[in-house]
C-alpha cells in the first residue's frame, strides 16, 4: 500500500517526465488549467503512466470524475489500498 507522500513523489516524477519540466510542484488543488500544455493527450499519458506505475486500471467513470491532482492521488490511494 502506497502512502500519500509516496504517491505524490511518484506522481511528481510522472509529471516531470510528461511535461519535461522539473519545476512543477504538485498540490492537491492543482488543475490542468494551471499547467501549460496539460491537454487531453497529456491527461491520458498521466493516467496510463500512473496505471503502469501502480499496476492498476481506472474505469471510465473514475476518469471522468478527475478534477485535480488531489482526485488522482486519492484514487491511486484507494486502488492500492
Amino acid at each position, binding site marked *: 500500500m502506497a502512502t500519500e507522500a509516496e504517491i505524490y513523489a511518484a506522481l511528481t516524477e*510522472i509529471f516531470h517526465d510528461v511535461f519535461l519540466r522539473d519545476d512543477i510542484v504538485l498540490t492537491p488543488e492543482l488543475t490542468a488549467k494551471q499547467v501549460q500544455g496539460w491537454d487531453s*493527450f497529456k491527461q*491520458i*499519458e498521466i493516467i*496510463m*503512466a500512473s496505471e*503502469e506505475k501502480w499496476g492498476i486500471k481506472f474505469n*471510465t467513470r473514475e476518469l471522468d470524475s478527475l478534477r485535480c491532482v488531489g482526485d488522482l492521488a486519492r484514487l491511486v490511494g484507494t486502488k492500492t489500498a
Partner: protein
Amino acid sequence: MTDLHWLPAIPDWRQRLRALAAEPATAWDSAVALANARLNFVLTNALDETVRRVLPCGPESLATKKVRLAVLGSSTLTHLLPGIRVAGLRRGIWIDTYETDYGQYLQELSESDSALHDFQPTAILLALDAYHLTSGVTAGMDAATADAALEEMQGRISETWRLAREAFRCPIIQQAILPVHLTVLGNNEHRLPGSRAWFVTRLNQAVRVMAEQEAVDILAVDDRAARDGIGKWHDPALWHRSKQEVTPTAAPLYGDLVGRWLAAKQGRSFKCLVMDLDNTLWGGVIGDDGLEGIALGQGSPLGEAYTAFQEYARELSRRGVILAVCSKNDEANALEPFEKHPDMVLKRGDIASFVANWQNKADNIRAIAQELNIGLDALCFIDDNPFERNLVRQELPMVAVPEVSDDPTGYPVALADGGYFEGLAVTDDDRDRTSQYQGNKARDALKAAVTDLPSYLRGLEMTLIWKGFDRIGLQRIVQLINKSNQFNLTTRRYTDEDVVAVMADADAFGLQLRLTDRFGDNGIIAIVIGRLQDNKDLLIDTWLMSCRVLGRQVEPTTLNLIAREALKLGAKRLIGEYIPTKKNAMVKDHYARLGFTVMETDQAGGNRNVLNLEGFTPAETFIHVTEG
C-alpha cells in the same frame, strides 16, 4: 508484453536526457544511446521532444538516409509518431513525420496542392483502423453480401496504394488490421459471414496476397497482438475516449516495428549473430564440466531449452543470417561439442567465424567483423553474462547486445522480438551465405588489443568479499574443488572431510571469495588453500577460480589476500606450484605473471615458483576488498 524487453534499462537515463539538452554538439550520439534503452511511452515522448528541441532538423551529416514518413489513417495516430521517430533514432536514422488530418487521407492523396504533397514523403505508412474498415459489416449479412463487402474494401485499399504510389513513388507499408472485434458466434465465428471479427481475419489474409502483387510491405501488428494479447494493444475505453486504436503503452513497440522496416529498407538490418558458448549455447562450462557434463539435448528441460535456441539460430542461418562464435575458452575445448556432442544442432560448418580464446570480447568481436568483412554495426551479440554484455555495449555501442536473463528459453524470444534481423525478402544467396563466408574469410591474426579495459573495470564497482572456510559454504567449496578444471593450478580434489580438516588446522587457511559488481553477485568465484610448511614457507596447495571472472584483476587481488593470511601464520615466502593437466594450460604462467620467480620446471610441463613476502607490496587493483 509490449515493452521493449530486449533493451537494457539505463539507471541514470533521466539525468542523461537533461544533460543532452545542454550539449548540442554531442546530442545526436547521446540521443541514439538513450533511445537504445527500455523506454516506456512517457520516456519515449520525453526523448523525442528533447531531441526535436535541441536538433530541430536533425544532425547535418549522417551515415543513414533521412526519412520523411507520411502516416495516413482514419483515427488518432499522433501518439504513435514519437515512438516511430525514436525507433529511427535507435538505429541512427532521422525521421520526419507527417500525419494526415483525421480521416482525410484519400483527399490529401488525390489533391496535388495538399499539405501531404508539400511534405513530399519518402515513405508511407497506411494505418487504417478496424472500426473504419468494418463499417457497414454486420452479423445480419448473408455470405454473398459479406463477400461483396470484403471485395469492396480490398478495392479501396488497393486504390489507396495506387494513389500513393503515383503521387510519391516511394515505399508503402500497410498496417495489418488489429483484431479488435469481439466474437458474436464464438469458437466457430468463421461460420458467420457477416461477423466483424471474421471479416478482419479475412481482410488481413487478402491484404497480404494483394501486397505481394503490388510490392507493398506489411506491418504485422496482428501477429504481434496474437503474441502479446489484443488487450495489450487495444483498449476499448481509450477508443471511446480519444479514438486511439493502438493504446499509448504499445506505442514504443509499434514505432519500433516501423523503425525496423525503415532500417531494413536502407539495408541496415543486422546481418550476423555472434554467440557466446558456455551457458548460452549449452548449459554449464565445457572446460570444467566436460562433454558429458554440459546440459544440452533431450533428458532435461534445461538441455532442451538450449537445443531450442540452437534450432532457432540455425533457422536464422538458413534464411541468411551469418552465425559466429565468440567465447572465452581454449579453442580445443570450445570445438569439442561441435565435433563430438550428439545433441549439438549447430555444427562447425554453420559457424562462419569461430573465435575462442581468453582475450576480451570487444576485441574478439572486432576481429570477427574484420574476418567476415562486414561492419561492426551489422553484428548482434548474445551472451548470458552481464559483464560481457556491458563491456561490449560500452566499447562497441554500434553492436546490438540484447538483454537476456540466464534462462535460455528467453534467448530466441529476445532475438525475434528485438527485430534485429528484419528481412524483406529471401534470395537463394541468403540460403547459402554461411558457406560463402567460410570460403572467403581471411584468417588474420587478432588485432592488438585497443579496448580501454581499465576505465571499464573502474566503472564496475567490484567488491571481493572474502571469508575463511565455514560450514555454510562447505557444499559449494567442495563442489568447486571437484569441478573446476581450467583455472585450477593443482587440480587437487578434496572431500567434505578434507575441507573440514583445513578448517581445524591452525597451520593452514582456506579462503572462499565472492565477487559482486554493479550488475549483481557473481557468487563464490575462487577458492584458495594455503598450508604452512616446517621451514616457514607457505605452500599454495589449491588456487582455483571461475573463468567467468577472468580478466577482472581478481588474481592479483587474491594474491594480496593470500600474502596477508600467510604473514599472519608467520610465513616468510609463498610457494606456488602448477601441476599440468589436459585442461589447465591457461594457468601455466600464472605465478610468473604475478611476479613469482620460477624455481624449477619439470618434464611434464609443471613449475614451482617462489615469492618473498619480505618487501611484498600488494598490487593496486580496481577491486574493493571486504570481509564477508
